[in-house]
């Protein structure tokens, strides 16, 4: 049962970190937001065959947005988001879906290029929990999945009135999501191999709850 709450606990820790960061930096504005959009998750895979990658999927995520620093054109923004990373291991007759419940905290520099267009770029930290969904009742997820990630992201947002934004972002994460021991044809063991690097391209519509 405790595993069920593990990702939430991690997210709360991240959230507290963001909150402290925002408060210490004289946070000027806080907003809640909901994003709905299409996301293409791209897993860079070297060792694993039959992994579906680049599949577009509908993503609904929610989060909190802190406007930490605000000048005429530049803002420092911290976001906290919850969503799922996912890929499928495709074998005829069997279904293995890997799901990574992710809490992501991007820290972005946001530049107002025109009245309605914002450019953004920054770094991102993520914590996630790996789960296996399968029609094989005996299979449990094995070990080797790591639980954190670091990356960079860049994007564009266009304001559609006071509460709506449409945006696009590209995420590149650097940490291997999987560390494993590879067993060769004759039983030779290559320990500590690393694989599964996460990339994503997303298009989203954001609704902002203003206080």
């Amino acid at each position, binding site marked *: 049962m405790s595993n069920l709450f593990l990702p939430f606990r991690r997210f709360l820790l991240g959230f507290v970190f963001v909150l402290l960061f925002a408060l210490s930096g004289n946070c000027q504005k806080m907003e809640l937001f909901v994003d709905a959009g299409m996301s293409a998750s791209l897993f860079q895979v070297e060792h694993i065959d039959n992994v579906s990658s680049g599949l577009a999927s509908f993503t609904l995520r929610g989060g909190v947005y802190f406007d930490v620093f605000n000048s005429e054109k530049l803002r420092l923004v911290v976001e906290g988001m919850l969503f799922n990373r996912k890929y499928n291991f495709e074998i005829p007759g*069997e279904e293995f879906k890997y799901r990574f419940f992710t809490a992501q905290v991007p820290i972005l520099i946001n530049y107002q290029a025109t009245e309605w267009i914002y450019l953004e770029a920054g770094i991102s930290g993520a914590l996630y929990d790996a789960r296996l969904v399968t029609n094989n*009742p005996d299979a*449990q997820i094995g070990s080797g999945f790591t639980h954190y990630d670091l990356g960079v992201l860049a994007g564009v947002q266009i304001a559609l009135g006071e509460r709506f934004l449409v945006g696009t972002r590209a995420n590149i994460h650097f940490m291997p999501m999987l560390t494993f021991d590879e067993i060769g044809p004759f039983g*030779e063991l290559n320990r500590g191999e690393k694989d599964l690097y996460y990339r994503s391209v997303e298009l989203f519509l954001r609704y902002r709850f203003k206080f």
Partner: protein
Amino acid sequence: MRTTFFLCFLVGLLQGCSYMESYNSDPLDPRLPEYTAFGANAAGAYVDDTPWRTVCTAFGDECIGRELSYNDSTNKTVFLFPSGNLGSGNSTFERRARIRFVIDGNLIEDLIQGPGLFPVRIALDGTESYGEIWFWNGSDWDICNGGVGEFYVRELFGDFDRFVVAGTFGFVIDNSCGLHRIESGRYDFRFNEFF
């Protein structure tokens, strides 16, 4: 009240039994168990590129179907894995196989009483030490022996009364039985006694 306790006991027992048949999947191919060394009572390999997996039906610590024995007269150690499915998890009983190793000498005694340096690599030369693949033909086992390759013991801990042995393997059979490749094998078994 007694009925409730009995039902709880029954549900707990059934859950316990099903749990013992589950396995931790290999992250590279979840159809196979991952390599472990804690007594998972599981083994897996690719048999002619088809995944083969065996997970003991176990009651308590006892794993049914695997054998590890030493024969004084032949000076051979025999390690037989339980029967397992070939192919997907929905394979029929006819698509079953077993893997057996015949190894020269008293392997377990040598390892338990030895210096404890692992991994130990045992060359399967096809004659003194070799691997076998058994295929179920619907009424009996078709046995192909003389496999040439490697058998690794990567972990062995405990004593003669209770020990865990785990490792990896791979071998090729190319004789009158045909060409069979058993690749990327892994095993992890717990034993309560050694004969």
